[in-house]
C-alpha cells in the first residue's frame, strides 16, 4: 500500500493552523495557571461564553465575530478582575487551602456551561462571515480561510501579549510576580494589583479565543470540556511559565491531533491530548523544555 503523503501533508498543515489557534486558547492558562499559580479550570468555559457572545452579536446585528470579540474585550477584562477579587479575598489571602480554590473554579465551570445550556439549548451554533466558507488551493493542499483567519488572529494576539510582557513595566512585573512575590514587594510594587491585572488579561484572551473557536467549528456549550484537557496539556508541555513554550506545545499538539484524526478517525482525537498530558505529567512534569 502506498503511504498517502498528500493526506499526511494536508494533516500536518491543518495541524499547524489548528496549533496556532490552540496557542490563543492556552495563553490564558499560561498566564493564570503558569504564572500566577491559579488553577483556573473554568477558562475553557469562559472561552465558550466568548464564542456565544460573538454568536449573538453576529446573528442579531451581523457583526464580524472577531471584531465583536475585540469590542467586548473590556467586559471580559472586567469579569476577570472581579473573579480575581473574589478569589483573592476568599482563598488566596486565607492561606494555602488549594482544594477550595479548585472547587470554586470547578463550580464556575459548571455554572457557565449550564447557564449557556439553559439559555441556548444543546443545538450546535455557528457564525456567518465572509471567510467562513471559501478556501485557497495549492495543488493538493487545502487552506480554508476558516482556519487561516483564526490562526492569524491568534498569533497576533499571542505576539502582542509576548511584547507586552517583555517590554512594559507591568508585563515585567507579571513575570516577576511569577518568580518571586516577596522580591516584588521589596521593590514597592503591590503583587496583588499585578496579579489582578494578569488574571484579568488571562480572562480577556478568552473573548478572542472564543470568537476564533466559533469561526473554526459550530459548537454547543459542553464543547468546552474537550478544551480543559487540551489547554492544560499544552500549558504543561510548554513548561507553564513561558509563552514561547506554550506556542511550541500548542503547535505540537495541533499537529499530533490532526494526524490522529486523519488516520485513525476523530473519535480518537480527545485521547491524544489527554494522553499527552498524562504522559508528560508522569514522566516529564517540568514540561518538554523544563530543567
Amino acid at each position, binding site marked *: 500500500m502506498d503511504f498517502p503523503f498528500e493526506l499526511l501533508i494536508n494533516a500536518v498543515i491543518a495541524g499547524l493552523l489548528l496549533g496556532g489557534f490552540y496557542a490563543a486558547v492556552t495563553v490564558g492558562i499560561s498566564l493564570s495557571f503558569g504564572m500566577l499559580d491559579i488553577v483556573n479550570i473554568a477558562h475553557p468555559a469562559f472561552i465558550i461564553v466568548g464564542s456565544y457572545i460573538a454568536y449573538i452579536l453576529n446573528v442579531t446585528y451581523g457583526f464580524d465575530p472577531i471584531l465583536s470579540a475585540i469590542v467586548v474585550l473590556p467586559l471580559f477584562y472586567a469579569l476577570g478582575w472581579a473573579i480575581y477579587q473574589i478569589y483573592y479575598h476568599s482563598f488566596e489571602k486565607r492561606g494555602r487551602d488549594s482544594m477550595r480554590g*479548585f472547587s470554586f473554579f470547578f463550580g*464556575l465551570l459548571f455554572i457557565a456551561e449550564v447557564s449557556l445550556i439553559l439559555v441556548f439549548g444543546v443545538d450546535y451554533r455557528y457564525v456567518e462571515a465572509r471567510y467562513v466558507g471559501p478556501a485557497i488551493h495549492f495543488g493538493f493542499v487545502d487552506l480554508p480561510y476558516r482556519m487561516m483567519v483564526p490562526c492569524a488572529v491568534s498569533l497576533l494576539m499571542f505576539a502582542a501579549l509576548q511584547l507586552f510582557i517583555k517590554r512594559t513595566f507591568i508585563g515585567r512585573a507579571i513575570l516577576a510576580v511569577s518568580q518571586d512575590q516577596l522580591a516584588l514587594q521589596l521593590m514597592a510594587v503591590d503583587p496583588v494589583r499585578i496579579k489582578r491585572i494578569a488574571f484579568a488579561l488571562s480572562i480577556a484572551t478568552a473573548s478572542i479565543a472564543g470568537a476564533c473557536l466559533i469561526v473554526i467549528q459550530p459548537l454547543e456549550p459542553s464543547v468546552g470540556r474537550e478544551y480543559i*484537557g487540551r489547554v492544560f496539556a499544552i500549558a504543561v508541555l510548554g513548561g507553564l511559565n513561558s509563552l514561547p513554550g506554550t506556542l511550541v506545545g500548542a503547535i505540537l499538539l495541533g499537529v499530533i491531533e490532526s494526524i490522529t484524526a486523519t488516520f485513525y478517525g476523530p473519535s480518537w482525537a480527545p485521547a491524544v491530548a489527554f494522553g499527552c498530558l498524562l504522559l508528560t505529567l508522569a514522566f516529564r512534569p517540568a514540561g518538554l523544555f523544563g530543567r
Partner: protein
Amino acid sequence: MSQRNFAILAILVAAAVLGAFLLIRQEYLFVAGYIVLQYVVLATAWNILGGYMGYINFGAAAFFAMGAYGTVVIQKLFPMPPMIVLIIAGGIIAGVVGLVMGYLTLRLRGAFFAIATLALAVVLQTLITNWGFVGGSRGAYIVRPPQAPLLETYVQYLFLVMLVLSVLALITARAIERSRLGYGFATIRDDELAAESSGVPTLKLKLIATTLSGAMMGMAGAPFPYYINYLDPGSGFNLAFAINAIAMPVIGGTTSWLGPLIGAVLLGSIQQYATVAISSAADLSNLIVGVLLVLFVIIAPHGIVGMFRRSARGPGH
C-alpha cells in the same frame, strides 16, 4: 462510640429507612432514593482521597463508569451473574485503575494531580467509546432479571443493594478516620514533606488511598446498568457524577464521614426534587450544584459540619 456500636447503629438506621420506605409503598421513593444513596457512596469514596488526604480527584465519573462497564462486560460473557459478583468485580476493576493512577501520579501534587485525574477520565472514556464489545458510542442494553431477589420489585432490590453499600462505605470511612491509616492520610494533607521526613510512608499511603477510593466508586457503579437499563459512555462518564462527588463532601464538610453523608443526602434530595418539580431539570440541578458549591467554598469553607462544630465550641475558636 466504638467501631462496633457505630456499625450496629448504622445498620439500624438503614433498616429503619428501608422499613419506612416499604411502608409508604411509593415506588418513586426507591427510584429517587437509589440515586441519593449512590451519591452517599460516591461522596464518601471521594472524601477518603480528597478530604482525608487532600488529593482532589476530578475523575470520579471514570471510576464509577469502570464499575458500570465491568457489569456490562461480565453479563455479556456470563448471563445473569449474581449482584455480589458484579459489585466485587466493579470494585476490583476500579481499584486497579486507582492503583495505576496512583503510580502514574506519584510525583504530582496539588493542581497537577487534579488535572491528571481529569485527563485519565477522558482517556478512559475515549477507550470505552471506541470499544465495540461494550457497545461503543451507541451504548449497550442490559436486561434485568425477571424476578427480584428478596423484595417485590427489582428497583426495591437495587435500593437495598445500594443501602448496604452505603452502610459499608460509611463504616469503612469512619474506621479509616480513627486508625493509623487515617492519621497518616491527615499528615499528608497537612504537610506532605514534613510527613515524609518524619517517617510516614507517604508513597504507600497514597497508593492505598487511590486504590480504596477508586474501588468504592467502582462498587457504586456496578449496579448502575441495571438501574438505567441502557448504558452509553455519556451516562456512565456523566460529568454530573464528578461534580457531585466533589460538591457533596465540600458542602457537607470534608474532615469526617458525616460531611459527605449530609452533603449527599441534602444535594441528592434537592436534585431529585428538582427533577420532579421542574422541567429541564437535569441542567437546572447541575446549576444548583454549581452555585451551591461556589457559595459554600466562599462563605462556609468548612462545610455544614464545620458550621455546627464552630458554633458548638463557641466564639473565638
